[in-house]
Protein backbone atom coordinates (compact mmCIF):
# COMPACT_ATOMS: atom_id res chain seq x y z
CA UNK A 1 0.00 0.00 0.00
CA UNK A 2 1.15 3.50 -0.78
CA UNK A 3 1.75 5.51 2.33
CA UNK A 4 1.83 9.07 1.25
CA UNK A 5 2.94 11.63 3.73
CA UNK A 6 0.71 14.55 4.34
CA UNK A 7 3.20 16.80 2.65
CA UNK A 8 2.08 15.12 -0.52
CA UNK A 9 -1.56 15.83 0.25
CA UNK A 10 -1.18 19.36 -0.95
CA UNK A 11 -3.10 22.19 0.55
CA UNK A 12 -4.57 22.65 -2.91
CA UNK A 13 -6.36 19.30 -2.79
CA UNK A 14 -7.87 20.05 0.60
CA UNK A 15 -8.85 23.52 -0.52
CA UNK A 16 -10.44 22.08 -3.64
CA UNK A 17 -12.40 19.62 -1.54
CA UNK A 18 -13.64 22.46 0.60
CA UNK A 19 -14.85 24.16 -2.54
CA UNK A 20 -16.83 21.05 -3.39
CA UNK A 21 -14.49 19.83 -6.12
CA UNK A 22 -15.59 16.26 -6.69
CA UNK A 23 -12.40 15.34 -8.53
CA UNK A 24 -10.24 16.46 -5.63
CA UNK A 25 -12.39 14.47 -3.27
CA UNK A 26 -11.98 11.45 -5.49
CA UNK A 27 -8.20 11.85 -5.24
CA UNK A 28 -8.41 11.82 -1.46
CA UNK A 29 -10.81 8.91 -1.53
CA UNK A 30 -8.56 6.84 -3.76
CA UNK A 31 -5.55 7.55 -1.54
CA UNK A 32 -7.16 6.37 1.65
CA UNK A 33 -10.06 4.08 0.77
CA UNK A 34 -8.24 0.76 1.01
CA UNK A 35 -6.64 1.53 4.35
CA UNK A 36 -9.86 2.80 5.83
CA UNK A 37 -11.75 -0.20 4.49
CA UNK A 38 -9.12 -2.67 5.70
CA UNK A 39 -9.14 -1.24 9.21
CA UNK A 40 -12.93 -1.33 9.29
CA UNK A 41 -13.11 -4.82 7.82
CA UNK A 42 -10.79 -6.36 10.38
CA UNK A 43 -12.36 -4.33 13.14
CA UNK A 44 -15.71 -5.92 12.31
CA UNK A 45 -14.27 -9.39 11.82
CA UNK A 46 -14.79 -9.55 8.11
CA UNK A 47 -18.29 -8.11 8.08
CA UNK A 48 -18.13 -6.42 4.69
CA UNK A 49 -21.45 -4.71 5.13
CA UNK A 50 -20.37 -3.04 8.37
CA UNK A 51 -17.00 -2.18 6.88
CA UNK A 52 -18.65 -0.65 3.81
CA UNK A 53 -21.03 1.33 6.00
CA UNK A 54 -18.22 2.64 8.16
CA UNK A 55 -16.06 3.51 5.16
CA UNK A 56 -18.84 5.37 3.42
CA UNK A 57 -19.71 7.20 6.61
CA UNK A 58 -16.10 8.30 7.07
CA UNK A 59 -15.77 9.74 3.61
CA UNK A 60 -19.18 11.40 3.63
CA UNK A 61 -18.32 13.05 6.92
CA UNK A 62 -14.94 14.00 5.57
CA UNK A 63 -16.47 15.67 2.55
CA UNK A 64 -19.20 17.44 4.45
CA UNK A 65 -17.05 18.61 7.34
CA UNK A 66 -13.78 19.31 5.57
CA UNK A 67 -14.37 22.97 6.29
CA UNK A 68 -13.54 22.17 9.90
CA UNK A 69 -10.07 20.92 9.04
CA UNK A 70 -7.93 23.90 9.82
CA UNK A 71 -4.55 22.32 9.18
CA UNK A 72 -3.21 22.43 12.70
CA UNK A 73 -3.13 18.67 12.76
CA UNK A 74 -2.04 16.53 9.88
CA UNK A 75 -4.79 15.57 7.52
CA UNK A 76 -4.48 11.82 8.05
CA UNK A 77 -4.74 12.26 11.81
CA UNK A 78 -8.00 14.06 11.33
CA UNK A 79 -9.20 11.44 8.88
CA UNK A 80 -8.35 8.61 11.23
CA UNK A 81 -10.20 10.29 14.01
CA UNK A 82 -13.25 9.90 11.79
CA UNK A 83 -12.38 6.23 11.26
CA UNK A 84 -12.04 5.62 15.00
CA UNK A 85 -15.35 7.35 15.68
CA UNK A 86 -17.15 5.43 12.95
CA UNK A 87 -15.85 2.05 14.15
CA UNK A 88 -16.37 2.68 17.85
CA UNK A 89 -19.85 4.16 17.33
CA UNK A 90 -20.89 1.16 15.29
CA UNK A 91 -19.46 -1.19 17.91
CA UNK A 92 -21.45 0.58 20.61
CA UNK A 93 -24.62 0.39 18.51
CA UNK A 94 -24.18 -3.33 17.99
CA UNK A 95 -23.83 -3.87 21.70
CA UNK A 96 -26.86 -1.70 22.45
CA UNK A 97 -29.31 -3.27 20.03
CA UNK A 98 -31.86 -5.33 21.95
CA UNK A 99 -32.90 -7.56 19.08
CA UNK A 100 -30.89 -9.51 16.64
CA UNK A 101 -30.68 -7.12 13.74
CA UNK A 102 -30.59 -8.36 10.20
CA UNK A 103 -26.88 -8.78 9.89
CA UNK A 104 -25.45 -10.33 6.80
CA UNK A 105 -23.36 -13.40 7.42
CA UNK A 106 -19.75 -12.68 7.94
CA UNK A 107 -18.02 -13.40 4.70
CA UNK A 108 -15.53 -16.20 5.08
CA UNK A 109 -12.27 -14.77 3.93
CA UNK A 110 -10.15 -16.62 1.54
CA UNK A 111 -13.03 -18.62 0.16
CA UNK A 112 -12.51 -18.38 -3.53
CA UNK A 113 -10.15 -15.42 -3.03
CA UNK A 114 -7.32 -15.19 -5.46
CA UNK A 115 -5.12 -13.76 -2.70
CA UNK A 116 -5.22 -16.84 -0.53
CA UNK A 117 -5.09 -19.94 -2.56
CA UNK A 118 -2.99 -21.69 0.02
CA UNK A 119 -5.32 -23.35 2.51
CA UNK A 120 -2.86 -23.15 5.40
CA UNK A 121 -2.31 -19.45 4.86
CA UNK A 122 -6.05 -18.92 4.70
CA UNK A 123 -6.50 -20.75 7.97
CA UNK A 124 -3.79 -18.71 9.59
CA UNK A 125 -5.27 -15.46 8.38
CA UNK A 126 -8.67 -16.51 9.70
CA UNK A 127 -7.12 -17.28 13.09
CA UNK A 128 -5.45 -13.89 13.17
CA UNK A 129 -8.67 -12.16 12.23
CA UNK A 130 -10.52 -13.99 14.98
CA UNK A 131 -7.83 -13.09 17.48
CA UNK A 132 -8.07 -9.43 16.47
CA UNK A 133 -11.85 -9.62 16.80
CA UNK A 134 -11.47 -11.01 20.30
CA UNK A 135 -9.53 -7.94 21.44
CA UNK A 136 -11.47 -5.33 23.39
CA UNK A 137 -12.52 -2.60 20.96
CA UNK A 138 -10.07 -0.03 22.34
CA UNK A 139 -7.12 -2.33 21.80
CA UNK A 140 -8.47 -3.58 18.49
CA UNK A 141 -8.75 -0.16 16.90
CA UNK A 142 -5.32 0.81 18.23
CA UNK A 143 -3.44 -2.17 16.78
CA UNK A 144 -5.28 -1.93 13.46
CA UNK A 145 -4.61 1.78 13.17
CA UNK A 146 -0.94 1.29 13.95
CA UNK A 147 -0.55 -1.65 11.61
CA UNK A 148 -2.35 -0.28 8.57
CA UNK A 149 -1.51 3.34 8.86
CA UNK A 150 1.79 3.46 10.72
CA UNK A 151 0.86 6.67 12.51
CA UNK A 152 3.22 7.95 15.17
CA UNK A 153 2.11 7.55 18.75
CA UNK A 154 1.36 11.25 18.89
CA UNK A 155 -0.83 11.06 15.84
CA UNK A 156 -2.56 8.00 17.24
CA UNK A 157 -3.17 9.81 20.50
CA UNK A 158 -5.02 12.49 18.56
CA UNK A 159 -7.02 10.01 16.55
CA UNK A 160 -7.91 7.96 19.63
CA UNK A 161 -8.57 10.93 21.93
CA UNK A 162 -6.12 9.75 24.55
CA UNK A 163 -2.60 10.34 25.81
CA UNK A 164 0.56 8.99 24.22
CA UNK A 165 1.10 6.85 27.30
CA UNK A 166 -2.32 5.27 26.83
CA UNK A 167 -1.53 4.57 23.18
CA UNK A 168 1.69 2.84 24.22
CA UNK A 169 -0.11 0.83 26.85
CA UNK A 170 -2.96 -0.25 24.55
CA UNK A 171 -0.59 -1.30 21.82
CA UNK A 172 1.62 -3.27 24.17
CA UNK A 173 -1.30 -5.04 25.75
CA UNK A 174 -3.08 -5.58 22.44
CA UNK A 175 -0.03 -7.19 20.87
CA UNK A 176 0.55 -9.36 23.92
CA UNK A 177 -3.04 -10.54 23.88
CA UNK A 178 -2.70 -11.54 20.25
CA UNK A 179 0.51 -13.40 21.01
CA UNK A 180 -1.07 -15.17 23.94
CA UNK A 181 -3.95 -16.32 21.78
CA UNK A 182 -1.96 -17.47 18.82
CA UNK A 183 1.42 -18.48 20.17
CA UNK A 184 0.82 -22.11 19.36
CA UNK A 185 -0.06 -21.26 15.79
CA UNK A 186 2.80 -18.93 15.02
CA UNK A 187 5.41 -20.43 17.33
CA UNK A 188 7.29 -18.76 20.15
CA UNK A 189 10.90 -17.75 20.13
CA UNK A 190 13.46 -19.29 22.46
Amino acid sequence: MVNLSDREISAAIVESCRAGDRDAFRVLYDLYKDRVYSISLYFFHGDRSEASEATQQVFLKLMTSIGQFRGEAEFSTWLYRLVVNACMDAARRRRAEPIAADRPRLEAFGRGSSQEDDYARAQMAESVRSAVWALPTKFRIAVLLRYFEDLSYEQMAEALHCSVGTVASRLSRGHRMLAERLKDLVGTKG
Partner: protein
Amino acid sequence: MLRLGIAVCAVVALALGQGFTFTIGNPVASQDFQAKSAAFVFRTEGCADPAKSQIGGTAEGVVKGARRSISLKVVATSRPGVYAVYQNWPGEGDWVVNLKGTCANASAGAVVPIGPKGFVRESAKFFPRAATDAEIETSLKAIAQGGSK
Protein backbone atom coordinates in the same frame (compact mmCIF):
# COMPACT_ATOMS: atom_id res chain seq x y z
CA MET B 1 -26.26 -48.71 -27.09
CA LEU B 2 -26.32 -45.67 -29.34
CA ARG B 3 -29.45 -44.42 -27.59
CA LEU B 4 -27.77 -44.89 -24.23
CA GLY B 5 -24.75 -42.96 -25.45
CA ILE B 6 -26.92 -40.11 -26.67
CA ALA B 7 -28.83 -40.06 -23.40
CA VAL B 8 -25.60 -39.90 -21.39
CA CYS B 9 -24.31 -37.10 -23.60
CA ALA B 10 -27.58 -35.24 -23.17
CA VAL B 11 -27.45 -35.56 -19.41
CA VAL B 12 -23.83 -34.41 -19.32
CA ALA B 13 -24.59 -31.50 -21.63
CA LEU B 14 -27.57 -30.58 -19.53
CA ALA B 15 -25.49 -30.74 -16.35
CA LEU B 16 -22.78 -28.58 -17.84
CA GLY B 17 -25.17 -26.04 -19.32
CA GLN B 18 -27.30 -25.82 -16.20
CA GLY B 19 -24.48 -24.43 -14.12
CA PHE B 20 -24.29 -20.67 -14.41
CA THR B 21 -27.45 -18.60 -14.00
CA PHE B 22 -28.76 -15.25 -12.83
CA THR B 23 -31.41 -14.58 -10.22
CA ILE B 24 -32.87 -11.08 -10.01
CA GLY B 25 -34.38 -9.39 -7.00
CA ASN B 26 -35.46 -6.33 -5.10
CA PRO B 27 -32.50 -4.36 -3.68
CA VAL B 28 -33.39 -5.64 -0.19
CA ALA B 29 -32.10 -9.05 -1.26
CA SER B 30 -28.56 -7.73 -1.45
CA GLN B 31 -28.59 -6.73 2.25
CA ASP B 32 -26.24 -3.98 1.21
CA PHE B 33 -27.57 -0.52 2.00
CA GLN B 34 -25.49 0.90 -0.81
CA ALA B 35 -27.73 -0.91 -3.26
CA LYS B 36 -30.84 0.74 -1.94
CA SER B 37 -31.20 3.04 -4.91
CA ALA B 38 -30.45 0.33 -7.44
CA ALA B 39 -33.06 -0.50 -10.06
CA PHE B 40 -32.67 -4.12 -9.04
CA VAL B 41 -30.02 -6.53 -7.86
CA PHE B 42 -29.01 -9.90 -9.18
CA ARG B 43 -26.83 -12.76 -8.14
CA THR B 44 -24.95 -15.36 -10.06
CA GLU B 45 -25.40 -19.01 -9.24
CA GLY B 46 -23.47 -22.03 -10.31
CA CYS B 47 -20.19 -20.15 -10.53
CA ALA B 48 -17.45 -21.79 -8.49
CA ASP B 49 -15.49 -18.58 -8.20
CA PRO B 50 -17.72 -15.47 -8.42
CA ALA B 51 -14.64 -13.25 -8.15
CA LYS B 52 -13.55 -14.52 -11.55
CA SER B 53 -16.86 -14.08 -13.36
CA GLN B 54 -17.28 -11.38 -15.98
CA ILE B 55 -20.54 -9.49 -15.73
CA GLY B 56 -21.95 -6.69 -17.81
CA GLY B 57 -24.71 -5.66 -20.08
CA THR B 58 -26.64 -2.87 -21.69
CA ALA B 59 -29.87 -1.02 -21.26
CA GLU B 60 -31.82 -1.36 -24.50
CA GLY B 61 -34.64 1.04 -25.22
CA VAL B 62 -36.84 2.89 -27.63
CA VAL B 63 -37.27 6.60 -26.99
CA LYS B 64 -39.62 8.55 -29.24
CA GLY B 65 -39.23 5.95 -31.91
CA ALA B 66 -35.45 5.95 -31.80
CA ARG B 67 -33.63 2.81 -30.74
CA ARG B 68 -31.06 3.33 -27.97
CA SER B 69 -28.42 1.21 -26.28
CA ILE B 70 -26.55 2.31 -23.17
CA SER B 71 -23.74 0.53 -21.36
CA LEU B 72 -25.05 -0.75 -18.06
CA LYS B 73 -23.88 0.46 -14.67
CA VAL B 74 -23.37 -2.79 -12.76
CA VAL B 75 -21.64 -2.63 -9.41
CA ALA B 76 -20.55 -5.51 -7.21
CA THR B 77 -22.10 -5.33 -3.76
CA SER B 78 -20.41 -6.34 -0.55
CA ARG B 79 -21.57 -9.94 -1.07
CA PRO B 80 -19.66 -12.08 -3.55
CA GLY B 81 -21.67 -12.85 -6.63
CA VAL B 82 -24.30 -10.20 -5.91
CA TYR B 83 -24.52 -7.13 -8.11
CA ALA B 84 -26.58 -3.99 -8.28
CA VAL B 85 -27.87 -2.43 -11.48
CA TYR B 86 -28.29 1.31 -11.25
CA GLN B 87 -30.55 3.16 -13.61
CA ASN B 88 -28.51 5.19 -16.01
CA TRP B 89 -31.10 5.13 -18.80
CA PRO B 90 -33.64 7.91 -19.22
CA GLY B 91 -37.01 7.76 -17.57
CA GLU B 92 -38.88 8.22 -20.84
CA GLY B 93 -39.34 5.51 -23.40
CA ASP B 94 -39.47 1.74 -23.08
CA TRP B 95 -36.50 -0.08 -21.69
CA VAL B 96 -35.20 -3.52 -20.94
CA VAL B 97 -31.95 -4.47 -19.22
CA ASN B 98 -29.84 -6.97 -21.10
CA LEU B 99 -27.56 -8.80 -18.67
CA LYS B 100 -24.78 -11.09 -19.70
CA GLY B 101 -22.06 -12.93 -17.90
CA THR B 102 -19.46 -15.61 -18.13
CA CYS B 103 -17.94 -17.89 -15.55
CA ALA B 104 -15.11 -20.12 -16.75
CA ASN B 105 -16.62 -21.72 -19.85
CA ALA B 106 -20.22 -21.10 -18.95
CA SER B 107 -22.39 -18.17 -19.98
CA ALA B 108 -25.66 -16.71 -18.83
CA GLY B 109 -27.98 -13.99 -19.96
CA ALA B 110 -31.17 -12.28 -18.95
CA VAL B 111 -33.53 -9.68 -20.34
CA VAL B 112 -35.31 -7.75 -17.60
CA PRO B 113 -38.12 -5.39 -18.63
CA ILE B 114 -38.41 -2.12 -16.77
CA GLY B 115 -41.93 -0.92 -16.04
CA PRO B 116 -43.25 2.28 -14.47
CA LYS B 117 -42.83 0.75 -11.02
CA GLY B 118 -39.46 -0.79 -11.59
CA PHE B 119 -38.25 -4.10 -12.89
CA VAL B 120 -40.89 -6.54 -14.03
CA ARG B 121 -39.88 -9.84 -12.54
CA GLU B 122 -42.64 -11.87 -14.12
CA SER B 123 -41.61 -10.89 -17.65
CA ALA B 124 -37.89 -11.36 -17.20
CA LYS B 125 -36.34 -14.00 -19.43
CA PHE B 126 -33.26 -16.05 -18.65
CA PHE B 127 -30.90 -17.81 -21.00
CA PRO B 128 -27.87 -20.09 -20.77
CA ARG B 129 -26.03 -17.58 -22.97
CA ALA B 130 -26.25 -13.90 -23.86
CA ALA B 131 -29.69 -12.95 -25.21
CA THR B 132 -29.94 -12.59 -28.96
CA ASP B 133 -30.99 -9.35 -30.64
CA ALA B 134 -34.28 -10.96 -31.56
CA GLU B 135 -34.99 -11.88 -27.95
CA ILE B 136 -34.21 -8.35 -26.83
CA GLU B 137 -36.49 -6.87 -29.50
CA THR B 138 -39.28 -9.23 -28.50
CA SER B 139 -39.11 -8.01 -24.90
CA LEU B 140 -38.98 -4.39 -26.00
CA LYS B 141 -42.06 -4.84 -28.16
CA ALA B 142 -43.90 -6.45 -25.28
CA ILE B 143 -43.08 -3.55 -22.97
CA ALA B 144 -44.02 -1.00 -25.60
CA GLN B 145 -47.37 -2.65 -26.08
CA GLY B 146 -47.95 -2.43 -22.37
CA GLY B 147 -47.59 -6.14 -21.90
CA SER B 148 -45.95 -7.06 -18.66
CA LYS B 149 -46.83 -10.72 -18.60
